[in-house]
């Protein structure tokens, strides 16, 4: 139970939130035509006669859109409806050449499922909450309008018209902006694992309609408003905060909340009414007579299930129990599908070249990725996808530390050079002469000199100031430019100082 409350003049108010997430299905072609879905093309170059609603053109569904919606449903543990239908949602707008959107109102393809979210992403032991998914249906996207190119005209680009969307409708199960944010992030992660949507909110591949209402704790649900087309997690949270506050002030001021559609203005951080005409929502849905019911057979469903990857929750559990990673490292690595893939490539290559089990190289691989590599990428302003060092090269570097060729501190230097030159670790070590020495004779000689040069400290050490041991190690390492095997130094020092 969330303890998020709006403090009003008449006491505390709870917030009730439901989200309708529109996710663009990752396919090459559109939902009902063969036109491309690629982002950023010249206007109206990816529009077929079907998408422009030319008379006589008939829709034929893209099998991959159906498949990805089913796989997404399965990943959310949802019921898949073997029988679904397409309906027409009728309205007039310049970005909708058909005069209706083909959607699924009465018989959606996916029924109830759920998403488990952590109530604090930064704390691996934080409690979790299950948020219900009401349904997923497939529908067409509309075109795009541009209003700022001409003084008296709007421009219409139909490239997006007919692109396949999944509308993922949650139950009104969220009670705070943080929960809604966690839901969107987790949903995005699952979609990216499944590969059904790229989750790119900046390009509009994922956007949310945010339903908000307020009530006194324990009372019945209040009237909700719907804020449309919110395109970032931060904005979703801001909409909830602003809208809940507005509703509380409205009710406490003697007003009533009107069920309406609103828009979010990020510049002013406020929502405002779209002032639509009263009958704008009379969509006169009816079954689309151009499309037969969509019936899925068992083979199709079996392929969908068999092709699902390991999902984030299962992966996190395996990272902890099988690979022995810390909950924090496991949670960080699984949060994004690309990071998990990179880590697994690094670990697999490490296991291969070291001839060990994955679990024996997992911790070193995770620590290096999340520490050294992430640190460097942050500094360089790069994402993991643009990393100058590949998983294979990273695994070679880690292996050189594991087999004692170089020390951990030398590894950091080698890595810096690899970032600049892209050279393999072994080449950097050979070129710069950074190979760690375990030559006992050479180390002994240096240790003897360090002890002789610091006779006063040796005396102090023997009087019980044992902390000076580290000083001797440091001096020896410094004299050998960091290339001595620290374990050998320790052993020799212990023997000499005994």
């Amino acid at each position, binding site marked *: 139970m969330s303890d998020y409350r709006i403090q009003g003049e008449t006491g505390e108010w709870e917030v009730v939130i439901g989200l309708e997430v529109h996710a663009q299905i990752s*396919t*090459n*072609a559109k939902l009902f*035509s*063969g*036109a*491309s879905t690629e982002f950023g093309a*010249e*206007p*109206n*170059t*990816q*529009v*077929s*006669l*079907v*998408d*422009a609603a030319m008379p006589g*053109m008939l829709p*034929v*569904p*893209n*099998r*991959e*859109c*159906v498949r990805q919606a089913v796989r997404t449903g399965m990943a959310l543990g949802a019921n898949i409806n073997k029988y679904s239908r397409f309906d027409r949602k*009728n309205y*007039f*707008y*310049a970005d909708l050449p058909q005069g209706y959107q083909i959607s699924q109102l009465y018989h959606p393809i996916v029924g109830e499922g759920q998403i488990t979210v952590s109530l604090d992403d930064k704390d691996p032991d934080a409690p979790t909450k299950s948020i219900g998914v009401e349904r997923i249906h497939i529908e067409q996207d509309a075109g795009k*309008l*541009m*209003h700022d*190119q*001409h003084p*008296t*005209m*709007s*421009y*219409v*680009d*139909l490239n997006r018209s007919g692109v396949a969307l999944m509308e993922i409708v949650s139950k009104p199960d969220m009670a705070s902006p943080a929960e809604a944010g966690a839901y969107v992030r987790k949903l995005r992660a699952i979609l990216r694992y499944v590969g059904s949507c790229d989750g790119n909110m900046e390009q509009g591949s994922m956007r949310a309609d945010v339903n908000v209402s307020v009530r006194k704790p324990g009372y019945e649900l209040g009237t909700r408003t719907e804020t449309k087309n919110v395109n970032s997690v931060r904005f979703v949270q801001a909409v909830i905060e602003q809208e809940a506050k507005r509703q509380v002030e409205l009710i406490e001021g003697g007003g009533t909340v009107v069920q309406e559609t609103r*828009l979010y203005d990020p510049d002013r951080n406020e929502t405002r009414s*779209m*002032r*639509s005409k009263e*009958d704008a929502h*009379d969509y*006169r849905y009816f079954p689309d007579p151009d*499309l*037969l*019911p*969509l*019936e899925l057979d068992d083979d199709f469903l079996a392929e969908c299930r068999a092709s699902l990857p390991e999902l984030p929750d299962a992966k996190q559990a395996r990272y902890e129990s099988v690979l022995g990673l810390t909950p924090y490292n496991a949670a960080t690595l699984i949060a994004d599908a690309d990071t998990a893939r990179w880590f697994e490539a690094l670990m697999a290559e490490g296991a291969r070249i070291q001839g060990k089990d994955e679990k024996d190289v997992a911790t070193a691989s995770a620590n290096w990725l999340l520490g050294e590599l992430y640190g460097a990428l942050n500094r360089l302003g790069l994402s993991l996808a643009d990393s100058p060092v590949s998983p294979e090269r990273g695994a070679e570097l880690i292996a050189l530390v594991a087999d004692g060729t170089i020390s951990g501190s030398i590894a950091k230097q080698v890595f810096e050079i690899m970032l600049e030159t892209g050279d393999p670790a072994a080449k950097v070590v050979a070129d710069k002469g950074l190979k760690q020495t375990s030559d006992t004779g050479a180390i002994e000689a240096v240790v003897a000199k360090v002890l002789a040069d610091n006779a006063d400290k040796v005396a102090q050490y023997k009087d019980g100031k044992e902390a000076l041991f580290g000083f001797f190690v440091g001096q020896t390492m410094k004299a050998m430019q960091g290339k001595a095997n620290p374990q050998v130094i320790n052993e020799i020092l212990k023997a000499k100082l005994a």
Partner: protein
Amino acid sequence: MSVDLPTVKKIASLARIAMDDAEAAALLPELNNILGWVEQLGEVDVSGVEPMTAVIPNTLRLRDDVVDADPLTGGGVRDKILANAPEPQHGFFGVPKVIE
């Protein structure tokens, strides 16, 4: 079931069909005749009968996810798309300014 004059005018407005009062009034009995005629179907007991979607057994055909596989239903035909547009502008459809 029957409709009244305001309903006729509302449906006309939702369908963007311009209609003056005289036309709507003339249409009212016609629509109610049609509705009454269709309503006779309600006399048949269809409880437990699956709705029929096709007269002969037929299933929905699906397409493979291939771009421009069939030129008739593919993209890259902007000239055709815009051929009948009243005001094409730089590859866009130009329409009267619409802002919510």
